């Protein structure tokens, strides 16, 4: 090969190389996804979604409030096992639930799953169960907050009744709810991490100082599950997991709607389950299995603090009390938002009067839903105060457990909806996600629900022959029937609105814009609706 020839070949090669570079760059350019990246920057990753999910059921509230309440009122020591088993059942439920969430655009809440999977009539019925359930959970928490805050203030030398404290919290929640202030993101994350840290420290202290000098694992024995009472207690544990429904609401806000939400939901369930189960076990070990019920009855919500107090510095107990209060407050706020959001979605879909679908222009707060919940809460708190009922047992325990029953009914029907949804079409989900897990979840939840309906009276230690033993379950049935009836009426009266059911806040076309109210929403004499576009 001559020099010229070599030169030629080199140049030829260079051309090829440059060409290849350009080609490669062109490919890279089309892969460079500006849109996804720009959107992802502003969106939530797995940890943020988990925070949202777990914060709703603030772990400290559940562990210090709910767990000691169960020990006190029930006397059954299977609590740790109950939390772990519930977490297991809900994990299985989550598999199908999350798989279905991938196929429903902008899925709002459980009821929209039910209307997609089992039809709109049952969807509306579910929504009518969900509203009182979440409302009761929130109102019940006011009782806990009142008692705890009055105790803390009492220790500081301020004498305030639980009622006064509950009213204070109520006013704050009502105002923040109207302003649609979200304790989201960083505040919530910091609080949650602090709470979890405190819980872990307390657990370690309790485990390190067991009653009788040795650790007791008998509270974890699986044989306890044979008793129907224990299965019924799972309804109480459900209260510790309610937040995980909220993760799916965020699917449009997630970095990768397909994966982020699935992971975050699983994490939320596992985190809550393990934390609560571990703590409940630690409490039982520290107090001693035989004594834990008596200790819980004596100390009530101070149970954990009294158990760890001899072994940790005073400051850590004070931090615990403060975090306990903020945790209940965060839960109050989260539930308040959840309830008003529910009402907003229902209002937008036309299931509630259209006024409920109205949001404050600047803040985006679902004003009417927020006010409704606040008024309802105030009425209930006032009633309890006037009747002089014990806020811890009758307000907190009864209402949250009854709310938990409603949420359990929702989860149970959602698990049926998941089966129904994938029976029609598997939508490229694998057999485990689309078939096996939903069926197992449905069966397990059916058992828990049946046991709960039978054993609710025992769980709440109601007297034998009390009407409340069956009236609560019956009330949910009544609400469900009302919802179904309302859906049937709507199918005839407002077919366009009926067709929109299940679309969540996405729903509502321009044809249904309500006639706007006057600014400042004073009562106005005109409530005629616009003629819809034909």
């Amino acid at each position, binding site marked *: 090969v001559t020099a010229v020839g070599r030169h030629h070949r080199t140049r030829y090669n260079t051309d090829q190389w440059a060409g290849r570079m350009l080609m490669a760059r062109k490919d890279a350019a089309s892969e460079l996804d500006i*849109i996804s990246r*720009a959107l992802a920057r502003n969106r939530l990753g797995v940890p943020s979604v988990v925070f949202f999910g777990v914060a709703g059921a603030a772990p400290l509230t559940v562990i210090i409030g709910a767990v000691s309440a169960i020990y006190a009122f029930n006397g059954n020591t299977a609590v740790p096992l109950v939390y772990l088993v519930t977490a297991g059942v809900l994990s299985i439920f989550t598999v199908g639930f999350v798989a279905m969430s991938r196929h429903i655009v902008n899925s709002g809440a459980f009821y929209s799953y039910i209307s997609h999977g089992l039809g709109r009539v049952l969807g509306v019925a579910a929504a009518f169960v969900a509203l009182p359930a979440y409302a009761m959970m929130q109102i019940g928490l006011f009782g806990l907050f009142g008692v705890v805050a009055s105790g803390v203030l009492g220790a500081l030398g301020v004498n305030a009744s639980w009622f006064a404290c509950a009213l204070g919290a109520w006013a704050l929640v009502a105002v923040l709810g109207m302003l649609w202030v*979200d304790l989201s993101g960083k505040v919530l994350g910091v609080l949650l991490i602090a709470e979890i840290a405190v819980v872990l420290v307390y657990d370690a202290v309790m485990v390190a100082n067991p009653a009788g000098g040795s650790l007791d694992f008998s509270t974890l024995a699986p044989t306890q599950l044979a008793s129907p009472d224990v299965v019924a207690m799972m309804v109480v544990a459900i209260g510790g997991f309610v937040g995980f429904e909220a993760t799916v609401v965020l699917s449009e806000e997630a970095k990768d709607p397909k994966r982020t939400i699935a992971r975050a939901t699983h994490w939320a369930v596992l985190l809550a389950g393990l934390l609560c189960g571990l703590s409940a076990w630690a409490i039982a070990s520290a107090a001693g299995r035989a004594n834990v019920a008596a200790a819980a009855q004596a100390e009530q919500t101070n149970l954990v603090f009294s158990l760890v107090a001899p072994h940790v510095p005073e400051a850590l107990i004070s931090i615990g009390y403060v975090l306990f209060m903020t945790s209940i407050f965060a839960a109050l706020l989260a539930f308040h938002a959840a309830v008003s959001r529910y009402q907003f979605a229902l209002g937008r879909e036309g299931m509630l009067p259209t006024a409920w679908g109205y949001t404050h222009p600047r803040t*985006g707060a679902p004003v009417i839903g927020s006010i409704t919940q606040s008024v309802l809460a105030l009425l209930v708190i006032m009633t309890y105060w006037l009747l002089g009922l014990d806020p811890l047992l009758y307000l907190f325990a009864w209402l949250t457990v009854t709310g938990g029953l409603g949420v359990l009914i929702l989860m149970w029907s959602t698990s049926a909806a998941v089966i129904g949804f994938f029976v029609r079409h598997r939508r490229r989900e694998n057999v485990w996600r689309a078939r096996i897990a939903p069926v197992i979840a449905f069966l397990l939840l059916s058992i828990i629900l049946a046991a709960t309906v039978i054993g609710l009276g025992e769980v709440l230690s109601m007297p034998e022959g009390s009407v409340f033993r069956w009236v609560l379950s019956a009330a949910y049935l009544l609400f469900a029937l009302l919802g179904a009836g309302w859906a049937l009426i709507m199918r005839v009266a407002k077919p366009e609105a009926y067709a929109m059911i299940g679309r969540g806040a996405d729903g509502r076309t*321009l044809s249904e814009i309500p006639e706007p109210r*006057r600014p400042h929403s004073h009562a106005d004499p005109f409530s005629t609706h616009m*003629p819809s576009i034909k």
Partner: protein
Amino acid sequence: VLADQYFLIAHEDRTGRSRLHPRATGLGLAAALLSELVLEGRIGVADGDIIILDRHPPGDALAHDILDLLIAQPQHRDVRTWLAFLSQDAAGRVGERLMRVGAVEPVTRRRMLSTQTLYMPNSAEQRNAAAWAPARLANLLVRGMELTISDRVLAGLVAATGLTRHVLYDFEMHRHAFHSLPSAVGSLPSDLRELIEYTEASVGSALTVGRR
């Protein structure tokens, strides 16, 4: 121009703040920008997807920029994705465009940790022009006059994002306008109507979540 009109309606003329939740305003502006391209015949909307009809650059720099982006990112066709993407900086970009025509002036505000540039009318003349935007739309609707297609889209976006009460603030005087509003929107071509519906849905879900 459509998005300019929407901007002036959606922001307070005295403080430059958004009258709506910032995300709702962003979505409204994004939809207005896309509508401009639809009105110019550059893109179409069908079944939730954006279709490029004409690659010739529009005269307006911002519209040109957005069309280029739509062409460069063919893997994204979903209207809601584009609404979400464009809504992120729509307020600033439309503000800049308004600044170029002299309708607003940039005002930099120092906030706690960051500075924020607001575009707001500053002179009396600019204020008048800004206040005229909602008044003009209300006027057209109240009188039941024939609306141009661009004004009908504007009315639709105003309704979809929740600004109706601001534009038609006088309940008695504007009562008739509430009734002519749906028919104004209903008579739009299907792509624009679809775009407005998607905007409303996006605003709904953004508000449901309640994040900023």
